[in-house]
């Protein structure tokens, strides 16, 4: 039996196969953060005045929070102090970003994405997915720009949007997540270096899935990207986000912001498969994933749907949320969060019902293995004017082994008596009964666990675009390797 356990351990050790480092010459700025650094980043990006002003205001706000030690402490996660002066805030591959053609891309970067299984070229063309790739801090390539342009869809790096569509950026930047929102959102607003920008005009059904792939490569570098997606009246867009990072002993900070805006009758579907380096099995290293994601259903009958599969990161702190302002608008949150070894996740959502007959659905599946700690934190708020609001919440936890933990913190606040709220929760263990049943049918231990977990997550996987669903299932199996023994 012990040789069996050893074999499983070995598997666990080599489980993170995205942990390589690419040798790419990069241009970085010195460590540390101050007003000068913010000016430097803005200058490097040749930003217009309004951007610099906004960044500086954000920086001053963040600095005041930092002085007051106002980093959020309420989450059910534990980590040592972060030294914000001992971090690099900008790193770019040494070559001109935002290329028009793939041939111009550094072959090392291209090779990196190929290694990651992110085909930026022909394969993705066949699959009909447009990709924006963010390497360290800057966007290196966006595929399919032409085809999208024909449909009127703008899909480009954030830097490019600032240059070419400043009026759109100015109108929507910070309109959902203001820089005053929280500590990490303020930090992001001050130093964010790139990200993706999407604008789908009125009545346009975006002809393909849009996808961004984030990769942290450089050491001691924080990644602060910002994504802004605007769906104009009656527009539709489906957006996918994936992420990986090399294996490093030091923790690295990833503090992103995502803002979604849906106008009348518009729909945005946002899917994430997050696989940042989770740290080793002793809990050393890994990414701190402190992310603010929020969507605003501004228009009537609009809909925003978040689906996330979180398997990576040492610590995850994120609550993709919906502000349901438009009457009859719909918010959805489907989540699978897995913590193995010493990973910690405090994740969930907020659904703020403002408009009449607004509806929200929350389905979360938390899986804890090893010493993993998994927390669901959710808030459903029905405002006074939200007549006929409805919420359905289901949060299920699955425990594998006896050293992990699952925690649930649902907050419900109702200020209109016509609201209908439903809340279901369950916690279960992968039982010895279930394991024996599957193994008696010839299915090996590891495969049995992965089958039980995939079954547990099925409701959420159904919401993912097909190719992502397959990837997510595989990822769960890999992330669970080593959890039996």
């Amino acid at each position, binding site marked *: 039996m012990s040789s069996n356990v050893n074999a499983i351990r070995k598997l666990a050790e080599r489980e993170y196969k995205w942990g390589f480092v690419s040798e790419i010459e990069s241009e970085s700025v010195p460590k540390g953060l101050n007003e000068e650094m913010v000016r430097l980043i803005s200058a490097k990006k040749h930003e217009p005045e309004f951007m610099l002003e906004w960044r500086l205001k954000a920086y001053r706000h963040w600095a005041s929070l930092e002085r007051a030690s106002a980093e959020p402490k309420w989450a059910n996660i534990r980590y040592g102090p972060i030294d914000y002066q001992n971090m690099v805030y900008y790193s770019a591959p040494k070559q001109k970003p935002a290329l028009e053609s793939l041939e111009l891309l550094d072959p090392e970067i291209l090779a990196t994405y190929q290694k990651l299984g992110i085909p930026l070229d022909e394969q993705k063309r066949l699959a009909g997915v447009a990709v924006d790739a963010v390497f360290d801090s800057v966007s290196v390539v966006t595929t399919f720009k032409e085809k999208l342009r024909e449909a009127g869809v703008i899909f480009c790096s954030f830097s490019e949007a600032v240059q070419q569509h400043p009026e759109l950026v100015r109108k929507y930047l910070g309109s959902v997540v203001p820089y005053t929102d929280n500590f990490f959102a303020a930090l992001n607003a001050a130093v964010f270096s790139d990200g993706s920008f999407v604008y789908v005009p009125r009545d346009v059904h975006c002809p393909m899935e849009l996808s961004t792939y984030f990769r942290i490569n450089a050491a001691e570098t924080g990644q602060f990207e910002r994504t802004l997606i605007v769906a104009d009246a009656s527009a539709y867009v489906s957006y996918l986000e994936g992420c990986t990072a090399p294996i490093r002993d030091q923790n690295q900070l990833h503090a992103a912001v995502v803002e979604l805006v849906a106008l009348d009758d518009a729909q945005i579907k946002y899917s994430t498969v997050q696989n940042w380096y989770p740290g080793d099995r002793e809990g050393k290293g890994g990414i701190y994933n402190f992310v603010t994601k929020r969507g605003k259903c501004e228009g009537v009958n609009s809909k925003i749907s978040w689906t996330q599969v979180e398997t990576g990161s040492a610590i995850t702190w994120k609550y993709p949320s919906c502000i349901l302002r438009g009457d009859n608008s719909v918010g959805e949150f489907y989540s699978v969060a897995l913590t193995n070894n010493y990973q910690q996740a405090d994740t969930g959502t907020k659904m703020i019902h403002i408009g009449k007959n607004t509806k929200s659905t929350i389905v979360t599946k938390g899986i804890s293995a090893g010493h993993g700690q998994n927390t669901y934190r959710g808030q459903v708020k029905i405002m006074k004017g939200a007549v006929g609001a409805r919420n359905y919440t289901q949060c299920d936890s699955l425990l594998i082994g006896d050293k992990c933990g699952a925690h649930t913190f649902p907050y419900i606040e109702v200020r209109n008596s016509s609201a209908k709220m439903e809340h279901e929760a369950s916690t279960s263990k992968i*039982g*010895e*009964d*279930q394991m*024996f*049943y*599957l*193994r*008696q*049918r*010839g*299915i*090996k*231990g590891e*495969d049995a666990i992965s*089958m*039980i977990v*995939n*079954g*547990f*997550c*099925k*409701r959420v996987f159904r919401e993912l675009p097909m190719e992502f669903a397959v990837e997510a299932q595989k990822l769960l199996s890999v992330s669970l390797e080593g959890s039996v023994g």
Partner: protein
Amino acid sequence: MKSPLLEIRNLHVSVDRHQILKGIDLQVNAGEVHSIMGPNGSGKSTLAQVLSRRDAYEVNSGEALLNGEDLLAMKPEEAAWAGVFLAFQYPVEVPGISNAYFLRTAVNAMRKARGLEEMSAMEFLPMFREKLRLLEMDDKLMNRSVNEGFSGGEKKRNEILQMAVLEPKLAILDETDSGLDIDALRVVAKGINAMRGPERAIVVVTHYQRLLDYIVPDFVHVLVDGRIVRSGGPELARELEETGYGSMEASTSAA
């Protein structure tokens, strides 16, 4: 001479230091149907589970050989690959995994372990449908989650369906008749009888004689307090029906 399919010698098994099996000897050849009968708590289910390698039990002494190989050294999946099948007394639910997907995964796990090529969905489905018909089960059950929301009778039928698909060498049926009404019992028995053959042995573990009206065993063993106290032909089951286990218990304490 060919070794028997299953040979149990002087098997002693305990749970939490509590002795359950106190020296079992049993030989089962391919092509035979054996019935193990006994009152509640006599150790019937323990025997069934030890043979299918559930690890909650401690084997204190004795051995069990499957085709001459040490069955007690195998993991549950290894025993399954070697041809051991247990029809569970309490089948387990697997939410979110369809019956068809589950069974195809099981079939392919077995085939892989035996060095055979995996079966495609196209090859699997017609075979699966045929077995569904044998057990008079609705096609809809293919896409329902394993045992989830099944009635007691459906669960038991589903066990026999799995047996029919997996075609084991040694099938152990643990109280398959409990909780079945007479119509379901008849269908289940039909499924089991269809599985009888020269290459396969079936061990029917049951409390009641009722099932044996439909599946007539070649041998009947009476298990009382961890020991086989009597063995005989099918007539032994009928005798038990009339006299009950009480007389057997008396005969053991006298022995």
